[in-house]
């Protein structure tokens, strides 16, 4: 069989195929990881540009640059692209690159399906972005696609629905691959409770994905049939209910926010021990906390709906269940801080991003707690306070974790050290500008400025000006990130196998750059002990 072979010893030295076909047909987890990460970076820039259109318009009260309809298209598309195009593919890319190396597996469990999971995405986003040029414009009713706006919306909503179906197929296949890989391809000795936290958080994320992406598919299908085939799911005149859309959507939507943050928790749990030069504090409590958060995420969805007129008993249930999430999340923050306690810390760029994550994500967590209080939420609902909240958990939260991961593993991927000075400049620019952008939005929200409106009262002008300046600064700083990444891919100081003095884990036992195929045979005792996965006695100490 010339067209197929096992990942045997010969293959270890096989160079990857050349040209475009390498990337189109690849079944290699590292190639696919790279594709995901580059795609995510591209979408990050596209979605970021849309955010800058929004912030440019909001720089001053009144209408300056865009008409309200286009403004709403920008907020809607920005959210869809950042969530489904930037953050989720970035995490999947990291999963592809790292999980097989971290558990000593030769590749992902289902390599061909892995290729398909990725290559659906460029087509899905072509479909989504094409709506910008359609009659009636792109979807403008918010990424949440609430009925009845989405039922009555322009033709682009149908393209959005079908694009979501494609993204869903991609995510579900990706998640199934992660589960099969982790459950079935761990090298001997890599027991579940020895897996790096990043692997654990991704395993749990994958379960969230296969549980809720089909629910999203179901609810957008109902929207499609309400639009075109006469059904009345969301039409009270036919016995349905527009609120039903919100219930099903948020049954997907709340676990989705953990899909966007659990892998980030995993990344931070890899980075902080490395630069504190101490093992992670409370490893097993981290695992249980992650699982608890995932479980709770299924019973809190209606905290997005306190103002729709739910029975009081429902509001109380969702309020208390939501506040309960603070407990496992608190465990995590405590463990990260305890890991740093009396550690021999150094502050390379990944560590800076990780520490900023711990601080700033926690601010987002606290504002989430405020929003969880139903009577208070009546005030905050649909204001800029909500915008500030979820941007704190998503930008200095999820996005910072992705950048931390990029700096942390770039030397392993490329074989080159990035420029530490530039990395630090990028960090400080990002950390300062992200706060300039989003911190004032708390005040705007508390003062009553509604979200998703291109114009506002004069008294909001000052904070909006500050926020817009911050946003442009943040956006421009990311060009520096792009420059650093490209520069590191093309060259730089050669990286050692371990890269970081305190790094533990199987991925640090293979050379940098990681060979095209790793762990075609299970890691030996030496690698396992270097990775800290053998008890000292077995390792021959």
């Amino acid at each position, binding site marked *: 069989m010339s067209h197929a072979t096992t990942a045997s010893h010969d293959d270890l030295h096989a160079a990857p195929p050349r040209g475009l076909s390498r990337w189109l047909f690849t079944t290699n987890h590292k190639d696919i990881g790279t594709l995901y990460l580059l795609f995510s970076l591209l979408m990050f820039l596209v979605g970021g540009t849309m955010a800058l259109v929004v912030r440019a318009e909001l720089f001053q009260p009144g209408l300056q640059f865009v008409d309200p309809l286009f403004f709403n298209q920008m907020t809607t598309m920005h959210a869809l692209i950042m969530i489904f195009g930037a953050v989720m593919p970035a995490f999947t890319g990291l999963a592809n690159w790292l999980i097989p190396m971290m558990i000593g597996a030769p590749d992902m469990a*289902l390599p061909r399906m892995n290729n398909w999971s990725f290559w659906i995405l460029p087509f899905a986003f072509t479909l989504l972005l094409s709506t910008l040029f359609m009659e009636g414009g792109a979807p403008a009713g918010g990424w949440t696609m609430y009925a009845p706006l989405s039922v009555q919306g322009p033709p682009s909503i*149908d393209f959005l629905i079908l694009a979501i179906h494609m993204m869903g197929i991609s995510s579900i296949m990706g998640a199934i691959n992660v589960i099969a890989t982790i459950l079935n391809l761990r090298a001997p000795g890599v027991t579940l409770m020895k897996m790096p936290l990043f692997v654990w958080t991704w395993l749990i994320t994958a379960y969230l994905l296969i549980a809720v992406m089909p629910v999203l598919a179901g609810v957008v299908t109902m929207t499609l049939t309400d639009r075109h085939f006469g*059904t009345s799911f969301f039409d*009270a005149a*036919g016995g349905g209910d527009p609120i039903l859309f919100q219930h099903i959507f948020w049954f997907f939507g709340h676990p989705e926010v953990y899909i966007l943050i659990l892998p980030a928790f995993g990344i931070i749990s890899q980075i902080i021990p490395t630069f504190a030069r101490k093992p992670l504090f409370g490893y097993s409590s981290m695992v249980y906390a992650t699982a608890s958060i995932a479980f709770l995420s299924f019973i809190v969805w209606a905290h997005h709906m306190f103002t729709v007129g739910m029975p009081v008993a429902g509001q109380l249930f969702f309020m208390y269940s939501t506040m309960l999430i603070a407990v496992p999340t608190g465990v995590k923050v405590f463990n990260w801080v305890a890991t740093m306690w009396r550690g021999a810390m150094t502050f390379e760029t990944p560590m800076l991003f990780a520490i900023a994550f711990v601080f700033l994500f926690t601010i987002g967590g606290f504002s989430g707690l405020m929003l969880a209080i139903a009577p208070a939420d009546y005030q905050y609902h649909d204001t800029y306070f909500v915008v500030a909240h979820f941007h704190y958990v998503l930008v200095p939260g999820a996005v910072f974790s992705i950048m931390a991961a990029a700096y942390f593993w770039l030397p392993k991927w490329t074989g080159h050290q990035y420029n530490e000075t530039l990395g630090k400049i990028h960090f400080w620019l990002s950390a300062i500008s992200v706060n300039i952008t989003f911190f004032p939005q708390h005040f705007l929200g508390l003062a009553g400025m509604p979200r998703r409106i291109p114009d506002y009262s004069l008294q909001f002008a000052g904070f909006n000006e500050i926020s817009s300046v911050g946003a442009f600064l943040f956006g421009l700083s990311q060009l520096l990130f792009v420059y650093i990444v490209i520069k590191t891919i093309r060259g730089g100081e050669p990286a050692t196998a371990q890269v970081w003095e305190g790094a533990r884990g199987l991925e640090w036992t293979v050379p940098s750059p990681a060979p095209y195929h790793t762990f075609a045979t299970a890691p030996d005792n030496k690698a396992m002990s270097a990775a800290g996965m053998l008890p000292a006695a077995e390792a021959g100490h």
Partner: protein
Amino acid sequence: MSAHAPADGYYVPHGSYWPIIGSIALFLIAIGFANYLHDLANAQYIALLGVALLLVMIVGWFGSVIHESTHGFYNTQVDKSFRWGMGWFIFSEVMFFAAFFGALFYVRTFSVPWLGGAGDEVSTQAMLWPYFDAVWPLVYPPSDAHTLSQTAFDIPKATVPAWGLPALNTAILLSSGVTITWSHWGLLDKNRLQFIAGLFATVALGILFLSIQAYEYGHAIHELNLTLNSGVYGSLFYMLTGFHGLHVTLGALILTVVFFRALFGHFSEHQHFAFEAAAWYWHFVDVVWLGLFIFVYWL
């Protein structure tokens, strides 16, 4: 290079062009269908081209998998990956149906009673449709209660009773669950006749189920005037049974392929994952039907 013995390690296939073909197929289906919904001339042919391409991909992709399997490329670990993959795929399908069952329970427990005036200090009914009777199955949608002459909905004469064809279909589908298990026992006992006859009976029962379902649809649409446009009862009825029917169709197709592969002698008592995957899938559509029968037709 010759085929490696199973012990040779985990099989990682070389590059494959099937996935990218599958992506193009999905893209064609999506743009074709969306444009068809907006009356672009001939858009349906783009979608059909996509479907055709998807079929080519499925045949090609599964063809390579079957080839690799029958040539001994897969060890037990690869087999396990397929099992985890299929198992969790079925779980994701369960969650897809869960969305529609959730809608059914919500409509029956909340939205219809609320529209009928249930709940504390709720004036929905008084404000919107004071003559609406909140009963289930919902024959008269709220906006059409007592105004039959100007209805925007298709008002059904009746709904489909549980204890007629649906009960018969329940018996048929449950029997097919028995025949597929009987077939599995035949395979394990090396009783080839029982194996193949069981498969054949399962496919036949599946087709019988689908035919009865099609007949029932025809009856409901043409004689009972129950359509997708009959308010939320019609919506839930057709979407739930329709998606179930699609899954039965898919399951029957998979079983048909497995049947022919069985005739070609592809399966042994030790190695027959494709058969088991098809059987799992069949049991899944079986269980979904039980939920449908109880909550859509019966209660």
